[in-house]
C-alpha cells in the first residue's frame, strides 16, 4: 500500500512540474474550462436559490385557495360560499380575500392591489411596494390619482413604502382598505376574489378540496403544494432551457479539450517516449496523463464554483437574471440567499468534469501507449 501511495505521489509531483512547464497550453485550457464551470455553476446556483425563495414565500400561503370559474375563466366568489365551506369537517377557517390587478397606463405596468387590515392603511391612504414607488417616482406623503373603473379618479396618499428586502413578494403591491378597493374597481358587494381556507390536518387537504368541488362544481380549489409544484416546474424549465443553450458551449469545450489532449506536441511525444524508455510502464504514463486531467479539472471546478458563487450571491447574476426571472415591467430588486449543497455540486461535477474526463481518456491512453522503441531512435 505504501509503495502504491509513493508511486502516486512521485508521479503527481512530476505531473505538477510538467503542467507548469507548459503554462501556455495548460493555461488556455484551464481558462476555457473555468469559464464553462462558471457558467453552469452560476445557472445552477441561481435556479436553486430562486426555487428556495419561491418555496419559502409559499410557506406563508394558505393551504387551500378556492376560486370560482365561469366558462373556464376565473370569476368572483359569492360570500355564501364562506358559510358552506366552513361547515365541511376539518376546515378551521375560511377567509375571503379581495385582490386584483390595476393597470397603470402611465408606464404600462400592472400593480397587484390587495385589501389589507394593516393599521398603516386607512381610507384614502395606501402602502406601496418599492417597485411601484420607483416606477412612479413616489415618496411617503405623495398623492397619487388612481383611475377607477367608472372613470372617476381616486386620490390616495402614500402612507408607507415597503422596504427593498420585501421586493420579491411586494415590489408591485398596493395595500388599501376594502372601501377604497370597492371604489377603485367598482367591486360588487357580497363577492370576494377568492377564499383562503385553512384545515386542521394537512393530509386531509385533497379530501376537503374534493368536498368543495362536490358542493360547488364551479369552484376551483388550488392546493399550496400544487402552486409550489408549478413554481418549481417553471424554474426547472427555465433553468433547463438555459442549460440547453449552454450545452452548445459545453460541447464546444469538450471538442476543444479533446483536440488539445490529442494534439501532443513533438516535445511532449518525445518526453513520453523517454519516460517509457527509462522504465515507465504504460500504466505509469497513463496515470501521469490522468493526473494531469484531474489537476486541471479540479482547479477549474473549484475556481469556477467559487467565482460563480460570487457572481450569483454577491452580484445577483447579471448574466442570467433576464432569462431566468421572467418578463415584467416592474422587476423586484433582490439579493438571493446563498444556497449551495452537495447535490448541486455533484450535478455540476457530472456536467463538467465527467464529460471532460471521458473526452480525454482515449487521447491520454494513446499518448501513454507510445512505443518506447521509437524513443530509441529519437
Amino acid at each position, binding site marked *: 500500500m505504501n509503495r502504491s501511495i509513493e508511486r502516486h505521489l512521485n508521479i503527481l509531483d512530476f505531473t505538477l512540474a510538467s503542467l507548469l512547464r507548459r503554462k501556455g497550453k495548460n493555461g488556455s485550457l484551464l481558462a476555457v474550462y473555468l469559464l464553462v464551470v462558471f457558467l453552469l455553476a452560476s445557472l445552477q446556483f441561481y435556479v436553486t436559490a430562486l426555487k428556495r425563495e419561491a418555496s419559502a414565500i409559499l410557506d406563508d400561503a394558505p393551504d387551500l385557495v378556492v376560486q370560482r370559474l365561469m366558462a373556464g375563466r376565473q370569476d368572483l366568489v359569492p360570500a355564501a360560499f364562506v358559510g358552506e365551506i366552513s361547515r365541511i369537517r376539518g376546515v378551521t377557517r375560511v377567509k375571503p380575500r379581495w385582490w386584483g390587478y390595476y393597470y397603470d397606463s402611465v408606464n404600462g405596468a400592472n400593480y397587484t392591489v390587495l385589501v389589507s387590515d394593516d393599521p398603516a392603511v386607512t381610507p384614502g391612504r395606501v402602502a406601496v411596494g418599492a417597485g411601484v414607488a420607483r416606477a412612479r417616482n413616489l415618496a411617503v406623503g405623495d398623492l397619487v390619482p388612481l383611475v377607477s373603473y367608472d372613470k372617476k379618479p381616486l386620490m390616495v396618499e402614500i402612507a408607507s413604502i415597503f422596504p427593498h428586502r420585501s421586493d420579491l413578494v411586494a415590489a408591485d403591491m398596493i395595500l388599501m382598505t376594502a372601501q377604497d378597493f370597492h371604489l377603485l374597481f367598482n367591486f360588487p358587494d357580497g363577492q370576494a376574489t377568492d377564499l383562503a381556507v385553512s384545515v386542521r390536518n394537512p393530509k386531509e387537504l385533497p379530501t376537503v378540496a374534493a368536498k368543495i368541488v362536490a358542493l360547488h362544481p364551479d369552484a376551483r380549489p388550488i392546493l399550496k403544494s*400544487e402552486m409550489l409544484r408549478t413554481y418549481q416546474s417553471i424554474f426547472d424549465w427555465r433553468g433547463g432551457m438555459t442549460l440547453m443553450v449552454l450545452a452548445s458551449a459545453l460541447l464546444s469545450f469538450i471538442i476543444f479539450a479533446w483536440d488539445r489532449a490529442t494534439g501532443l506536441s513533438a516535445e511532449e511525444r518525445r518526453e513520453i517516449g523517454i519516460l517509457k524508455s527509462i522504465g515507465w510502464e504504460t500504466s505509469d504514463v*497513463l496515470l501521469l496523463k490522468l493526473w494531469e486531467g484531474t489537476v486541471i479539472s479540479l482547479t477549474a471546478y473549484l475556481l469556477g464554483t467559487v467565482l460563480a458563487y460570487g457572481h450569483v450571491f454577491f452580484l445577483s447574476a447579471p448574466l442570467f437574471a433576464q432569462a431566468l426571472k421572467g418578463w415584467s415591467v416592474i422587476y423586484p430588486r433582490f439579493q438571493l440567499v446563498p444556497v449551495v449543497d452537495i447535490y448541486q455540486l455533484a450535478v455540476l461535477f457530472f456536467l463538467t468534469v465527467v464529460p471532460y474526463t471521458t473526452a480525454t*481518456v482515449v487521447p491520454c491512453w494513446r499518448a501513454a501507449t507510445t512505443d518506447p522503441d521509437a524513443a530509441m531512435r529519437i
Partner: protein
Amino acid sequence: MILHPAVLALLLIALLVSGMGSYAGYYGLRIQRFWNPASGSELQLELERKTYLISTIMNGILVFELMSLFLFVFTAEDLHTLFAGAMCAAGSLAVNPFGYPTLLLKIVNFLFAGVWLIINHVDNRGYDYPLIKIKYKLLNLLVPLLVLESVLLFAYFAGVKPDIITSCCGSLFGQNSGSFSGDLAALPHRPMQAAFFSSMVVTAISGIFYYLKGRGGYLFSAASVTTFIISAASILSFICLYFYELPSHHCPFCLLQKEYGYIGYVLYAALFGGAVAGGGIGVLMPFRQVCSLVQVVPAIQRRLAVVTLACYLLFTLMVVWKMVISTLTLG
C-alpha cells in the same frame, strides 16, 4: 420530460457510460477473436495496448455508475415535490413503470462492474493474461446491461411529467399495497430479524474459517451474496423503522436524506462493498489452480474476505446500535 439540470446530467452520464462501454465491448470482441500472447505480431501488441484502455474505461464506468446511482436517487428525491402524492424518492420512482427497474438495474450493473474489476485485477497479475478470454466474455454480458440501463433511464425521464398523481411512500411501502416493495415491508419483522442476524453469523463464521484455513470459499461467497439480499430486504422490513422511529415508514430512500444524517450512504456503501468483495471471492474460485495465478488468487481472495467481513461488520454494528438506542420498540 423535465428539463432539470440533474436529469440532464444523469442522461449525459448514461450516454457516456453506454458509449464507453460499447467501445470497450467492441475491443473485447476483437481480443476474444485475435488474442495470441505467444505471437509478437503488431496486432497482438495493439490488442495488449488496448487492454490498458479497457481497464481505464471500466474503472471509470464503475466510479460513474456508483456516483450516478446515488445521484439518481437524490434526483428522484429532489423531484418528488413535482408529483402530487409523492413524499420522497419512492413516489417519484413509481411515476411510471421504468423507475424501479432502472434503479434495480443500476444496482446490478454496479455490482457486476465491481466483480469484473476484481477479475481484471487478478488477470493483470498473471504473466500470461490467463483470464483474458473469460474476462471479455463477461464484459460482453455487462455491456448490453449498461445500454439497457441507459434506455430505461431515458424511458423513465421521458415519461415523467409534473403534477401526475402517484402513490406516496405510505401506500407504496405500506402493508396493504400490492406492489413488490409493499410485500417486502409486509414481511413480518421477527422472522426477518432472525434471518438477518443468522445470515450475518453464518457469513462471519464461514469468512473467518475461510481466512484462516483457506477452505470453504464457495460457501463463504454464497453466504455473503445471500446476506446482501437478506440485508436489503431487512432494510425495508425493519431496519429503517428503527432509524425513522416510525413503525409504518418503510421507505429505503429517506435514509439518504439530511434529516437522518445521510446515514444511508454509509449503510449502503458497506452493504455494496461487502456484496462485491464477497461475490468476487466466489467468482475467483475456479481460477485458483491456474498456473500463473497459483500464488496470486489466494492472496487476493484473503484480502477480499477481510473487506467483506469488515463491511458486513460495520453494517451490523450500525443496525444493532440503532436497534438498541432507538425509542421505537417493535412488538
